[in-house]
Each structure stands twice: as C-alpha cells, then as structure tokens.
C-alpha cells in the first residue's frame, strides 16, 4: 500500500433516528485500483454510498479527498469533486439515444442550441477509450440495447466528465455470464486508466475477479479491509456472515 488513497473515509457515523446504521466506518479507495465493498443486506453498504454521492450526508466522521478534508452535502458537491455513482437501476432514458443519455443534464451547446457533433464525438471517444466494441452506433436508442450494453453506457456516462472516483452499485446483478464478463473487463479498464473504482457486489466470484481490495461491512462496522491477493473466498464469506473475525494486524 505505497500509494496514497484518493479518498479516505474515517469514523463515518450515520443513524436514522434511534437506528445506528454506520458505526464508525473507515474506507480507502486508491486511484487505478478497484475497491470492492461487500456485506450482507442491511450491513450499511447503500447508506455508505449515498453519503459518498452526497444524497444522504453522513452524521459524523471525516471524508478526505486527495488529501483535503471535504464536505459532501449535496450531489453537486460530489460531482464537483469528480465522484460519480452508477446506481443499480442505471437511470437511463429508453427513448433517448446513447449520446443523449450520456450528456443528459450537461449538454454541449453552440449558442442556444445543441452541438450534437461535439457531443457525438466525445461520447464516441469515451466509449472507445473504454474499448467498448459491442455498441454499433452511438445514435442507437437505449431501448434497443442489452443489459450489459446499458451498464456500459451508464458507466461511460459516469466517466464522461473528469470522474476521479466511480462508485458502481451491483453492476452485474442482472446480467448473464457473457455480459458480466464484459462489464467486469470494463471495470478493470476503468481502473487501469487511473480512476478509483468502488464496486458493490453480492457476487464474490466477480469481486475476486476484478477487485484489488476487499472491504467487508458487517452490521455497520467495517470488519475487514484486505488486499484480494491475501484472502480467500471462504474467509470473506466468514467475515460477511460474522462467523469469522479478521485480525488486521498483518495487513
């Protein structure tokens, strides 16, 4: 762990009324690395992510981004820093094409009207930079895309504008084998370009295939943060279910 983390969460606390969901969570994500966040339902993964996106600010703890302490009080704060979240439902408009979706809410204009050529080229370049080969035309309607292609568009959308940290919520949950493979490759390429990626997944097979670090949340506490190479699937299952404890001393 020679690198300095892009983002570091320290002692993050969040509760809804009397229910304490996050009880002092620490998390680091590194540029160029894929950091997996796993944990059972109700462990607090979504709450942790919503805080990163600025949708649901944390109650306490510090967030340090590129070495500076920052506030994440609104989605705007997050996107200003270069934090993009791709939610599980992808939030794409089926009736619009790929370019229109990727630029939705931040269109390039020439005067009062759209600069479609500029948008088309940027969209095309972003997809190419991610070595996306499965999309025939950037003017294809999203309704005509497969699940994997949609995920690709959603991820490409997130990195279109200088994203430094991309958070992916269950990107492979609804995908078949081949498409899962494609998306995982995409995640890997994303990291290889220097983006810090946090991926949430229930599928440990996927996690071991793509992640550099694995973080396990258990009932609002980060019970393990391990380089993938130094652990096994059985151990991680143990941490997730709480049947095993991790002694982080030698990490």
């Amino acid at each position, binding site marked *: 762990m020679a690198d300095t983390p892009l983002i570091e969460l320290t002692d993050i606390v969040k509760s809804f009324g009397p229910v304490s969901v996050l009880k002092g969570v620490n998390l680091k994500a590194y540029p160029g690395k894929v950091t997996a966040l796993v944990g059972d339902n109700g462990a607090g993964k979504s709450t942790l992510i919503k805080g990163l996106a600025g949708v649901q600010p944390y109650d306490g703890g510090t967030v340090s981004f590129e070495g500076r302490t920052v506030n994440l009080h609104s*989605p*705007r704060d997050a996107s200003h820093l270069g934090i993009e979240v791709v*939610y599980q*439902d*992808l*939030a*794409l*408009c*089926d*009736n*619009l*094409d790929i370019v*229109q979706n990727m630029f*939705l*809410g*931040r*269109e390039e*204009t*020439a005067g*009062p*009207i*759209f*600069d*479609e*050529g*500029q948008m*088309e*080229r*940027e969209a*095309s*370049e*972003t*997809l*190419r*930079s*991610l*070595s*996306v*080969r499965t*999309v*025939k*035309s*950037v*003017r*294809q*309607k999203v*309704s*005509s*895309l497969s699940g994997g292609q949609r995920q690709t568009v959603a991820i490409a959308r997130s*990195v*279109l*504008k*200088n*994203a*430094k940290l991309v958070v992916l919520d269950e990107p492979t949950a609804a995908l078949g084998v081949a498409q899962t493979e494609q998306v995982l490759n995409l995640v890997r390429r994303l990291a290889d*370009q*220097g*983006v810090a990626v946090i991926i949430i997944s229930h599928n440990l097979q996927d996690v071991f295939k793509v992640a550099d670090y694995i973080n396990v949340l258990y009932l609002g506490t980060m019970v393990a943060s391990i380089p993938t190479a130094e652990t096994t699937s059985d151990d991680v299952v143990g941490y997730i279910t709480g049947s095993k404890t991790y002694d982080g001393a030698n990490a």
Partner: protein
Amino acid sequence: MTTTPETPNPPASLDTTNLPAEGGFIGSGQEGGIRDQARSYIQRVRSGDMGALPAIGGLIVLVILFTILSQAMLGQQFFLTERNFANLLTQASSLVMLAMALVFVILLGEIDLSAGVTSGVALSAFVVLTKPDTINMPWVPALLIALAVGVLIGAFIGFFVARVGIPSFVVTLGLFIGLQGVTLILLGAGGVFRIQIPDFLAIENSNLPVWGGWVMLGVILVVSFGMSMWDRALRTRAGVPNRTFALVIAKLVVIAVLGGFVVAVLNQNRSSSIKEIVGVPIVVPIVLVILWVGTFLLDRTKFGRYIYAIGGNAEAARRSGIKVITIRWAAFIVCSVLAVVAGVFSASKVGSVNAGFGVDTVLSGVAAAVVGGVSLFGGRGRLMHAAIGALVIAVIANGLGLLNLPAGVNYIVTGGVLILAATVDAVSRVRAGGSLFRT
C-alpha cells in the same frame, strides 16, 4: 480513416490519443452514401420506429377513397377540387394547432383535458373585450390578453400537477368542468358573440396574394437548406461524419415538389362566382411558423430534450440534475397558450364564440396526436406527427360530410381510425429488434 482533431476539453482521466486504431471506431448512423442511409431507414421502420408513416399512408388511402366515392355516389367530383383543398386546410388548422399543443404535455406522459375549454375562456375574454358597444378594445391587445389567459391557466395546471403532484388527468378534468362555467359567466347564458373584426376573420377566411405563396415556399426552402448547412458545419467542426450531401438535396427537392404542387393548386381560382378566389390561406404560414419554432425547441434546445427525458424516465432526469418541476410547469403553459391559438383559428373560421366553445374539441386533439404516432405513455412523438394525424381526422370529417352521410358515421369512422392507428403502432412495436438510428 482520418485522425480526429484534438479535443478542446478532453476528459482528464481518459487518454484517447494512443488507442489501437483497429476496431475502435463507433458509428453514428451518419456514414455511407444514400443507399446506406435508405437501408438504415428501412431497418428503423422495420424495427417498429414508424413515426408518422401509418398516418401518411392513411391520409393517401383516404384521399383516394373519397375521390372515388365522391365520383361514384354523387356522380361529380366534390372532394378532389381546388376549393375543397383550401377548405380542408382551413378546417383542419384549428385541430392541427390543438394536437400540436397537446404534444407538449403528452410527451411528458401527461394529458390536458381542459385544452379546449381553456381556449373557450380565452376567446370569451377576447370577444367581451372587443365588443363594439362596451369596452371596444383594439383586437391585437385583446388577443394578447387572451394568450395571457392561456399562460395563467397553464400555470395553474402546472402548479397542481408539477408542484402539488396531482395527476394531470384529475386537475384538467376539474378544469374542464370549471372553465365551462367561467365561459358561461363571461358570455352570459345563451349568449352568442359574433366577431366583426375583419383582420381577425381574415386569418381563416382570406388568402395570401399569389406571389405570397411562392415567397412562403422560397422561405421554407432557404430555411431548410440553411439549417442543414448549419448542422453540417457544426458536425464538421467537431470532426464527426456528415450524412451524404445528396440527402440534403433530396430533402429540398421533396419540399420544392410537394410544396410547389400545393401552392400551385391553391393559386388556382377556386371561386364558383365571378369574383375570383386565389392564394394560400393566411392560416397556413402561421401554422407552419409555429410548427417550425416548436420543432426547433423540442429537437435542439434543453427544454425540448428534457421534456423527452422526463417522458422517458422522470427519475433519471431528476438524477441528471434536470429541474423536472420547472420543465413540467413550462410544458403545461406552452400547451395552454397553443390551445388558445387553436381557439383563435376556430373562432376566426366560425366568426362567433358561444358558451359551448371548445368543449368538444380536446378529445379530437388527443386522437389526432395518437393517430399521428405520438405515444400517450410519453417520450415518443413529434409535432409533425400530430399535425399529420390531425389532417387524417380532418379529411375524414370533410370527406364524409361531402358525401352527405349522417354525422353519426363520421364519429364511428373517426373512432375506428383511432383504434386502427393504435393497433398498427402496438403491432409494429411487438416486432422487437434493435432500432439502430435515431428518429
């Protein structure tokens, strides 16, 4: 393949300069000659993206049918005549306008059942304000006030739909009932107000001079060519491929031939008496200007794009930072104002306003939009589609009327065509598959 020029604002995290050249290129549907474009268009249609094609087909079939029926049943051609052609355009203008107005809210997946009675209230205000023996306001400011009434009613609907969150069906149903009362109070019970303003009546009842029609066609051609060249210049600057230039020429030729035919026919004398009647009805260029401006808004500006986005997936639009409430609100205002314009055409045509003004038009407007291929679920359809759908419905009313068939037949046929159009749309969509290029 030429190298793409340097991006002015490249995504910092993504280095695109040293990509492998092989297989990296993603198309945009603009490539290839006229044959490739034709092939991709056919593919788009086959994959269910038919747009206004069924309505255009229906229009052609109806025109042929009524031409034959008129000859066969009446022994004389009443349908396919210069006079009826001009009549048809003026009769249809109000419905075309109303259908176009409704597109703005239908694209959001909303509805405005009060669009007709909104025009009733606005036109009542207009006739009361311009009444010679009382207020006697000049007609232009009175018209502006009528349009302002449209803005107010649209803002009212928008407030309850977008802010409070009541379904538009309910809000506008309430207004449909309530605004009839407003009209009744403004006009007094049983009141019929005749309009005696020559300039106002001229909208529907007078024509451009013969040269005016040709100038209109010239302007359309110049604007169409200018827009195409502007688009191409922007795309060239961005370094993305343009459609083949032959398509620009083809489009201009189609406009010139069709438009030239229409103007030429309308410039024939269609009078049955000594005083000759020639020229394009004044309402035609007005409708065309509104159609062009509206299409420009919907296709090329954020307002339009966000209407489509909200209609497609409102939650996605919200997460993208789009001010969903504001856009919805604005769409209802646009709809109500254009509905008032539709009312202006209708009042100009009839020459009077009564307490029932606009009550029975709104569902025809919705039907016209649907026949033209606008989806009631939102997110799909264009102003042009609604206009063509309105022409279909107007041709049915006009043709059956000329055949002296009872009015009941008109309703039955119109309803049948609506269901047929919806069926064609549904069936074409079931044949799924990838639609490769944008509409």
